[in-house]
């Protein structure tokens, strides 16, 4: 059995380098070694606190690759592989979430607004937020206000995120924020997408605009603090 601290280091490195499990071919230098899946099971078996495994093991690994990504030193595929490695490990933490022993930082509900099918940007944001320890509910594309309201029922303290890539669907975003504000004035609503900017965010009464995923992760961290 390896030293506990050493175990969490190896787990965070496995997540950072996207080594999902023993069979995963990438990265070459970890070929054949245990991945995030196995290391997480080992950590639980070694009696480490689930909250610590989530914190020091998984989220630290994601934030290291996230840091390299925002410096332009890592590409999105490396981020996605890390996210896959993290979800492979998270499977084993599920029971602790149910029992409340381990809490996510919060729930982030994201979707591309009505009439808009662009989701590449939205998916990258969803992946980065999940990597920062949030539970992400991805409503997909062409999402109307009622589906966001339904999620608020299910997750009373969730944060909403809306994406729009078309000038025409920006108008839908405005209407949807209006509709939600009508029923829930305080709900934090993040908005983004190429044509969206800070001024438009202010104008439609949304809470926060960020041009990139790092901005979203930073602001969510402040919210949860």
């Amino acid at each position, binding site marked *: 059995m390896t030293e506990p601290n050493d175990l969490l280091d190896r787990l965070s490195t496995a997540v950072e380098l996207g080594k999902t499990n023993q069979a995963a071919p990438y990265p070459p230098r970890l070929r054949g070694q245990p991945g995030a899946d196995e290391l997480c099971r080992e950590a639980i078996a070694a009696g480490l606190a689930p909250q610590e495994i989530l914190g020091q093991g998984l989220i630290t690994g994601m934030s290291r690759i996230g840091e390299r990504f925002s410096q*332009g*030193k*890592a*590409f*999105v*595929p490396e981020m*996605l*592989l890390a996210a896959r490695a993290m979800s492979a490990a998270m499977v084993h933490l599920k029971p602790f979430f149910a029992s409340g022993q381990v809490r996510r930082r919060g729930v982030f509900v994201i979707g591309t607004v009505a*009439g808009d*099918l662009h*989701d*590449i940007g939205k*998916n*990258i944001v969803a992946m980065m937020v999940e990597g920062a320890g949030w539970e992400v509910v991805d409503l*997909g*594309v*062409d999402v109307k206000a009622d589906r966001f309201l339904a999620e608020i029922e299910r997750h009373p303290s969730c944060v909403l995120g809306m994406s729009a890539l*078309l*000038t*025409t669907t*920006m*108008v839908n975003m405005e209407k949807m924020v209006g509709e939600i504000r009508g029923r829930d004035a305080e709900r934090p609503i993040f908005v983004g997408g190429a*044509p969206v900017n800070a001024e438009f965010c202010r104008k439609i009464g949304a809470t926060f605009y960020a041009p990139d995923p790092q901005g979203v992760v930073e602001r969510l961290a402040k919210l949860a603090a």
Partner: protein
Amino acid sequence: MRFHTLAIPDARDLVFGHAPHPVTTRRGLVLGAGTVYPELNFTLPPMQVCRETLPDVKAHYHQIVSEALRRARDLHAPGLVLEFETLLEMTMTPSIGVELVELMNGLCEEAYQKHGFRSEIRLTPNDSRDFDRPPRMRSSSHLDAMFELFERGAAAGGDLLSIESTGGKEVHDDALLMCDIKGVTFALAVLGVRDMRFLWARIVEVARRTGRIAGGDTACGFGNTAMVLAEKGFIPKVFAALVRVISVVRTLVAVEEGATGPDKDCGYEGPYLKAIAGIPISMEGKTAACAHGSPVGNVAAACADLWSNESVQNVKLLGGFAPTVYLEQLEYDTRFLNAAIRDGRSTVLKVQQLQVESDVHLDPQALVLAPQNVVAIAGEMVKARTYVEAARRGALRALDLIEAAIGEEALLCSEQEQGWLPRLREELNAIPDEESAFVEQMLPALDLTKTIPAEYGL
């Protein structure tokens, strides 16, 4: 693959303004016969599009087209193509799209009758099949509205029919983010090719029936998405360059089904289509910065017959409305190219050399657009029997050229990007030539909640 030879085997014949098979439009614009024309693409400012706002929408398009035609005449432009890229509501409710085509055609006809000024409309309906999740490419209910707009829009004066079709995109989006070159090849050379066959047989049919021109497709949702992601530093530029090359095989199918060109601008496959099939092409570069930045601002013009701004909203700039401003910029760009054509072949080649020189050392996506590289890569593609093989051969040839240029220190490429080259070569070599073998290899890993093989005839 139905093309087995190059229409332009010698790179020195792959030049702007000339194409082996020129196309003449209804009002006498001759594309690819010694003149480069501006192609102005315009869209609405942020506003709703519905029955109630139709008067406002029509006022915008009336103002855009009449001002652009007037400024084009003031500048003595040789002619103008106006691309009407519809917004979704205009395809979902075809009558809105048709009404707008009628309005614009009236203005073009007036300019022609009163001033002899030649202008034509390119009609680009939305591929609204993408609305079904997972998309039902052959059985989607959206097909009816799409083809109603094609049919009635063509009759109303939409002379050049085009579309940015999205067959295979649901697989390509994930493959793009994972930089999975095999997934990209499957999405483009298997799913994309099959959907293009299905779609373009019908579009060419509409063109024939209405006496219009089947212009062509463009892999905007594939090649351009890759470029935008590379510009943001999300995926390697070398990867985006290979996506560009692979997307050629799928867009070529439109020509195989009878499209005569000019193809559409935003996927940058044009030079390859011209080298292989000899059709006139539309390209966008530096003067499309209004729509997105790019690393191919000058080289994109190297063999263009139409020079486009991809898309600009009808917003006010100091000098006037943005579409009129961009019309002027496109006209001066093409004036310079036409002056070179008038000055003779050696001048055209010198200008082309400068267009290439200015971009080709700074980004692999520019390298694969240099005419000599286009001919080299296209030459490999036409040797293939199947589209999968053509995609693989083309991508491997491009990889060779990229690696050679890096070796000669003739191409800027970060360590990080170079790290991806061996892996890409390895994955490309693992792709079988036969479609059936490749399908067998890829089907098991396919996420059947996202894509329906039967909708591609698989």
